[in-house]
């Protein structure tokens, strides 16, 4: 297990370096002149050139890349035109809000999606299955920003139960979590249903039933354990995509997270800020994948050597 972990961890730095390089190339090739943005709309050409020199943007690309790497090593993401400084502290202070929203969404996704899928499989083709499967289709079809707007209209504006925006305590977490997790609940439920139905047809289930176990015991003791690997994969992958979904949902609910900051950076073309947040997202994605792989091994120790 330790060796497995060590190998996986050792892979992260080279992958991260590759990502940093790709991001650097992308952000150097997108249009939009940082110096002109910082100088403002009324700046003259001479002033723009002066700022370009100040920021070292006139240096050869290789030299800029080296400085970028050296900066990153010391936690310097470069000059942010929105914050007029290294944006790292501003990014980090928003991480908890995003993590909270992700964690509550994953929790809701598992707590609702998993039992719903198992229930649909257990009552296959009977009314609980039909009800759950229809709900799954509806949730998959509803885009999260639309769902969020509908929730705000109903629960805040019409009924006045929940705050419509911002992070102001536990109540304010409910709607963003619902908007963000709806699609994921549906995905997990559908996946679980399929996997459980498939497993229930296998010989070992027949054996378990034949030796006298009732259906519920066979389901919980044998089938679920075997069904877990594909389900965990889906949950892990979706947790990664939560990062993307959080951008939209955070903006809609004015949630003070990293995704909202990313859009602020994009709207004012603060490329160093956007680059920093993107890098954080990539590292987050890598860590989530690592966590999923560790979970595989916990569920099925044989994978450790595979």
């Amino acid at each position: 297990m330790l060796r497995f972990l060590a190998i996986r961890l050792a892979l992260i730095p080279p992958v991260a370096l590759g990502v940093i390089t790709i991001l650097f190339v992308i952000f150097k090739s997108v249009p939009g002149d940082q110096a002109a943005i910082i100088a403002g709309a009324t700046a003259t050409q001479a002033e723009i050139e002066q700022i370009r020199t100040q920021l070292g943007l006139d240096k050869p690309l290789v030299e800029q890349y080296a400085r970028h790497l050296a900066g990153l090593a010391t936690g310097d993401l470069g000059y942010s035109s929105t914050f007029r400084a290294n944006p790292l502290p501003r990014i980090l202070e928003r991480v908890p809000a995003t993590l909270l929203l992700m964690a509550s969404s994953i929790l809701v996704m598992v707590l609702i999606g998993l039992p719903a899928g198992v229930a649909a499989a257990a009552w296959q083709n009977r009314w609980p299955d039909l009800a759950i499967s229809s709900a799954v289709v509806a949730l998959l079809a509803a885009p999260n920003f639309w769902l969020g707007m509908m929730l705000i209209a109903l629960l805040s504006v019409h009924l006045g139960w929940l705050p419509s925006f911002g992070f102001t305590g536990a109540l304010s977490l409910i709607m963003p979590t619902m908007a963000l997790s709806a699609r994921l609940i549906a995905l997990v439920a559908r996946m679980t249903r399929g996997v459980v139905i498939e497993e229930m047809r296998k010989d070992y289930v027949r054996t378990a039933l034949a030796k006298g176990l009732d259906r519920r015991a066979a389901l919980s003791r044998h089938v679920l354990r075997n069904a877990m690997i594909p389900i965990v994969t889906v949950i892990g992958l979706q947790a990664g995509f939560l990062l993307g979904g959080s951008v939209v949902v955070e903006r809609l609910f004015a949630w003070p997270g990293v995704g909202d900051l990313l859009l602020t950076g994009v709207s004012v073309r603060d490329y160093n800020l956007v680059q920093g947040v993107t890098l954080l997202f990539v590292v987050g994605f890598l860590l989530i994948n690592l966590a999923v792989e560790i979970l595989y091994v916990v569920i099925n120790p044989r994978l450790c050597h595979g």
Partner: protein
Amino acid sequence: MNRREVFTTIGTVAAAGVALHPDIRALAQAGKETLTFGQSTAVLTLDPAQGSFTGYPAGYEAALCIYDRLLDFDANMKIVPQLAESAAMAPDLMSATVKLRGNAKFHDGTPVNAAAVKINLERLMDKARNPTNRPLWDPLASVETPDERTVVIKLKAPFSQLPNSLAHGSGSIVSPAALQAGEGNIAKNPVGAGPYKVASFSPGQELVLEAFDGYWNGAPASKRLVFKTISEAATRISALRTGAVDVIDNVPVALVSQLKQDPAIEILSSPGLRPIGFALNLTRAPLKDAKVRQALNLAVPVKTIAERVFFNFAKAPDSPLAFNTVGYKSVSPLTYDPAKARALLAEAGYDAQKPLTLKLFTPQGLFPGDVSVAEIVANALQQAGVKVEITKIEAASYWDAVRQDAANVKWDLAMFGFNPSNASGLYHLASLFKSNADDAGKPDVWNMARYRNPEVDALLKEADSTADQAAQNAALGKAQELIWRDNPYIWLQINENVSAVRKGVAGVEVWPIVFTVVRRARA
């Protein structure tokens, strides 16, 4: 507990929660000493120099509550005294004498005296510490302080717009003690002499201000001001309707009629200072012909654009300047006459066999309704017999695409609008229509059309070198007539800035320069 008991308990708790839980609308109405402003942009930094207040306009809107300046604008962009009791320009416009009021002090208790003002102005003049807003501060040569309450500003050349610079947001006066303690901290911990001081600030999320007891002009209208960033328009409107915020800015015009149906909401609007139009590339042979330029303007149905795209929250201009700009003069209304446009094009030698072909550049999401407006214009021009090729450019790369040296300009028509943040008509006209030093290079400021009229240059110079407001306005008026007649643009519309407040909120001002100002507001 068996299963039934568990479900019953959960159900009871949930029902009780719904029945007993307080209505957030009721909570929001309590404690009305606080005024909350939901802003479409985020307050990010609060230093008038070092890049000035970001993001725009949220940072400026907050700064107007925290800092006082030597001079101020009222809601109609008229310049009025603030920290200065008076500011008199010398007749030769080479200096100005500013008399400070004696009773003003900063939030940290230090007095607003001549030395404090000198430190601030010298910081604003310093290119390294203040790289933005250069046209406002470059004309200053030096600052002298003959006594505690007198500041003399010396200029490099006659500069009649100095009062506009002093009233501009970037002219905010910062406590010298705070500057000395660390200039880098001002952006996060601003200390000014304005009616409100900072209680807490999370950049990009929330700024809480509380009334400053020692304000020279008495206690402000509210005890607390809270600025919250709500970028999404629909969310902003929901927040206003639930009463979670009292004021919102930037209401999309398409949603105004829906919002008006809510009896608790009031709409505030004022025409902006930014006329939108298409700059004509005057280096192209066909566009050098005055008849063609006139025809292009006659071919565009400006009224329809204001009514259909902007629901009447826009007006067609009647001068190169917007209605509330200082020095604006009404020249003549735009007319829509496609028949005459066709006739003029025919006179210039274009017809169905040999049509005029123009490349039109529009940004996506930079100006209000930009793509819709561009499509209407292209369609109208096509009906007048002009072939138009539209290129839509992502907002982030638009300036790079249009602001090129002459050889690399790919457009014949490029959408543009200039917002003179100091409300000065002279600044506006000089930025757009003063001849470039070299038309082959990139435009010096924003004269992308490469307009060149020696008469206009002379009038702008005349306006800039007279202290007499009437003489200045007369020169600007003549310049506006000349430019309007020359048609270097296809003139389109001046949009209104639309904000909304809850009924009962008083004192919110929507300034023509995009700002929604709450420093005199109360809930």
